[in-house]
């Protein structure tokens, strides 16, 4: 237990940072209890009703998240479960954004019911997916993070479509701990007390549950009821924090991790220590944010900082997922039919896309209905429409091919640029290019995104190689990289100048700005990727059989991986410039291609390219028409098609 004493320096540091901020504000001239605003100076008021509740809420919210994470980890027997990785916080966030935009009346009754219902909806979805796989930890986290990513993508797009009126929401997304009075502290403390009581009552059943479902049932435990109760407690705790201070990522993951390092065994002690560690972590993070603000740096939300800690932490924790996936759980469906004439099928697909493109060129929406363009307006519109159609199709094709390559490389049907962190890395590269280069041209931006994508994938791949990890863990590493990228993006966004709005606009993707040169460049990328795929077709055929077989056949597996990583990075980087980081086209297209019976490596890739192009063409059309005369972001529209499909896929594949 002496190891617990190592928490003391953290406590000391957090306290010191807070005192420094307090001192900077009001010197030693502290207000006396009870606080009466009439009798105080302005600085004293800011201290008593701003900084003090802020310090308190950091402790309380951190404890709640730590406790919530610990409960989830115990009940799901999953060392990487927490309100962030299971999508609960993003669900709450989306519900709040929707509530604010669609039905502001609801919010009058308080933010809490809205946040809890959003969190519950997300949790329900993730649990429904997990239940089909016996709550296999990896599946749960992948499902949770996909649901979370989708929810926050939609929330971002809604924020964007409301213009800057909702810029406060962006700040809120990052989780700001700024307080105006003590009401938030009081409310959260009440919830924490209730949650702690419930957790105390659940300790013993949870300890029995830690034997596993069969063992617990054998001892007469109502497993389903205990699971439901425990998850509900965790969910209310996390949703309350979301409602009060916004999205604070990964504290629920870090708290229990710290508690374990400190030697917490057994569910009871783990919960207590996790709450303590969570409280200290959030206080420390907030203290750092305060100190940086005090030093004159940009003020950014505390949640962004915890995200920066959480991504690497998740990666470090992955090897602890012992025996997480029962063999055969995450493998591809087999028994697909094979297309009898793949070439004819591919030709048909290509023809369909050309036809659709041609139709989209001449059909348009006018106020009150649809119309075919006459010759004159066709000539006017062609220079505007043709590049965007070609650009969207080429981006979809590049994403589709990258997805097919990644699925073959990792032998995992759920791999895709979005999931493996390639898109997140590309987004970071774009953002860095925007911020570091004075007036970035298209070439600089393209270079930034491609490099970002390749770096992200290299990190994931090298990590996976070094730790000798099974393919499904690679997905988790990729998701962790995505989470890290989005945390950095949230921090960048919160800076809130014109450049951040540029990045935000780009994040949800629009095809409106495609120039003829840009479209041609994307086509060149597609051609390049196709050529490289053709020359590596044999590798793509053998690598899905695993490293053992591939090395046995004399493939230089290291070089092959590196080459394919580079190809995917280029493809994703090129496409991401146009459609933003989230579209799920890279996941859907290879899957559909496979379902159509395109089995051979080249057929699979070509099919994925054609289907990806078609999907993006459809998404572009939808994005232009759905909100006519305004245009919705292309990436948003694509992910609105993709996310439900993906979730359905995960639900179904449990045979």
């Amino acid at each position: 237990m002496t190891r617990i004493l190592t928490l003391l320096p953290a406590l000391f540091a957090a306290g010191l940072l807070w005192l420094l901020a307090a001192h900077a504000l009001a010197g030693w001239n502290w207000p006396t209890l009870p606080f009466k605003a009439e009798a105080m100076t302005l600085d004293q008021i800011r201290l008593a009703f701003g900084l003090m509740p802020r310090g308190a809420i950091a402790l309380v919210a951190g404890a709640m998240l730590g406790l919530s994470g610990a409960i989830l980890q115990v009940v799901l027997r999953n060392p990487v479960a927490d309100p962030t990785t299971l999508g609960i916080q993003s669900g709450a966030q989306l519900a709040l954004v929707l509530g604010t935009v669609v039905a502001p009346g609801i919010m009058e009754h308080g933010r809490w019911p809205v946040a809890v219902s959003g969190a519950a909806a997300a949790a329900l979805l993730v649990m429904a997916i997990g239940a089909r796989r016996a709550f296999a930890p990896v599946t749960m986290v992948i499902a949770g993070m996909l649901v979370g990513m989708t929810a926050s993508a939609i929330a971002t797009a809604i924020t964007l479509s409301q213009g800057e009126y909702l810029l406060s929401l962006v700040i809120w997304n990052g989780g700001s701990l700024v307080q105006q009075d003590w009401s938030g502290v009081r409310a959260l403390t009440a919830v924490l007390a209730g949650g702690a009581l419930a957790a105390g009552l659940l300790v013993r059943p949870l300890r029995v549950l830690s034997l596993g479902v069969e063992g617990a049932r054998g001892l007469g435990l109502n497993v389903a009821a205990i699971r439901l109760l425990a998850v509900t407690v965790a969910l209310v705790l996390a949703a309350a924090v979301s409602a009060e201070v916004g999205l604070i990522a990964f504290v629920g993951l870090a708290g229990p991790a710290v508690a374990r390092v400190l030697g917490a065994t057994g569910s009871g002690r783990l919960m207590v220590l996790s709450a303590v560690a969570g409280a200290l972590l959030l206080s420390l993070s907030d203290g750092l944010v305060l100190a940086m603000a005090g030093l004159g740096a940009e003020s950014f939300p505390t949640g962004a900082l915890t995200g920066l800690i959480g991504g690497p932490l998740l990666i470090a924790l992955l090897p602890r997922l012992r025996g997480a996936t029962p063999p055969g759980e995450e493998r591809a469906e087999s028994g697909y039919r094979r297309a009898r004439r793949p070439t004819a099928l591919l030709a048909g697909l290509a023809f369909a896309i050309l036809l659709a493109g041609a139709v989209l060129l001449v059909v348009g929406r006018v106020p009150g209905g649809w119309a075919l363009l006459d010759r004159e307006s066709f000539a006017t519109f062609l220079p505007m429409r043709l590049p965007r159609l070609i650009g969207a199709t080429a981006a979809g094709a590049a994403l589709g091919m990258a997805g097919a390559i990644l699925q073959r490389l990792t032998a995992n049907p759920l791999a895709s640029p979005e999931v493996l962190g390639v898109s997140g890395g590309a987004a970071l590269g774009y953002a860095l290019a925007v911020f570091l280069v004075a007036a970035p041209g298209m070439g600089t931006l393209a270079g930034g995104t491609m490099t970002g994508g390749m770096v992200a994938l290299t990190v994931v791949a090298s990590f996976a190689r070094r730790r000798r990890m099974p393919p499904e863990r690679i997905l988790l590493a990729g998701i962790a990289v995505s989470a890290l990228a989005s945390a950095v993006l949230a921090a960048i966004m919160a800076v809130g100048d014109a450049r951040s709005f540029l990045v935000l606009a780009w994040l949800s993707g629009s095809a409106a700005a495609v120039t003829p040169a840009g479209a041609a460049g994307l086509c060149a990328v597609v051609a390049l990727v196709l050529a490289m795929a053709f020359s590596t077709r044999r590798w793509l055929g053998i690598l899905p059989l695993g490293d053992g077989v591939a090395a046995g056949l004399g493939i230089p597996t290291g070089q092959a991986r590196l080459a394919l990583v580079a190809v995917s990075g280029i493809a994703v980087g090129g496409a991401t410039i146009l459609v933003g980081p989230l579209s799920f086209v890279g996941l859907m297209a290879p899957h559909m291609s496979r379902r159509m019976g395109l089995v051979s490596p080249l057929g699979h890739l070509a099919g994925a390219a054609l289907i990806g192009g078609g999907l993006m063409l459809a998404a572009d059309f939808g994005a232009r028409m759905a909100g006519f005369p305004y245009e919705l972001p292309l990436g948003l529209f694509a992910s609105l098609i993709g996310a439900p499909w993906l979730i359905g896929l995960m639900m179904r594949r449990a045979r």
Partner: protein
Amino acid sequence: MSLFSLDRLTVDVPGRRLLDGLTLDVPKGRLVALIGHNGSGKSTLLRTLARQIAPSGGHVQLDGQELGAWSARDYARRLAFMPQTTPPADGMTVRELVALGRYPWHGALGRFGAQDGQAVDRALAECGVAALADRLVDTLSGGERQRAWLAMMVAQGAETLLLDEPISALDISHAVEVMSLVRKMCHRQDRSAVIVLHDVNMAARYCDHVIALRRGRIVMQGDPAELMRPDMLQRIYGLPMQVMTRPDGTPVAVPA
């Protein structure tokens, strides 16, 4: 003439020594069984020979040349390896799987020529899977699938086969079928094989030479007859064993 010669071969993973200074010659042209208790290092040794694991110390030579000095492609032409669990071959037919064995010959870009086609046909015939050539690998029974993978190794044209527990997931009739096939492949075509086996009786019945490991060290190597003695089996498995003789004179070991 030895196939592999090992000199103080050591393999470590963080915190544990899997193979501890093995010095030994693996004979050529024979069926060699690698046996031992769980965790004895037999699979580690096989995977080291297949260059799937790098040794932490010592030397291994194949045909008198250091393992590291072989190019990946030459090594694959010389030696074929089958992992313990064969991965799912999603949507692949038996013929396509077997054709992958030609990779070390045509490479990433080379043409799949007539010679390659003939090698695939011969391999399909030799392993008795020609009739299954157009079936999907994942729809085959365990024994058929194992034979399809053996056919891939044959197509690879390698003289040496390394098999990691090829029969551990098979029922007894399929196990006998696969072991008979491997034995035939070796003896008729002058190939060598090193096979990790769990079952002592299978090892004694089908193999020509036995190498037994215990905790990363060699306990015995030699003739199967030498293995089938109660004292030797006790040393290898740490368990009293009884050896009985069947009417035809072959020994059978059971736990005493």
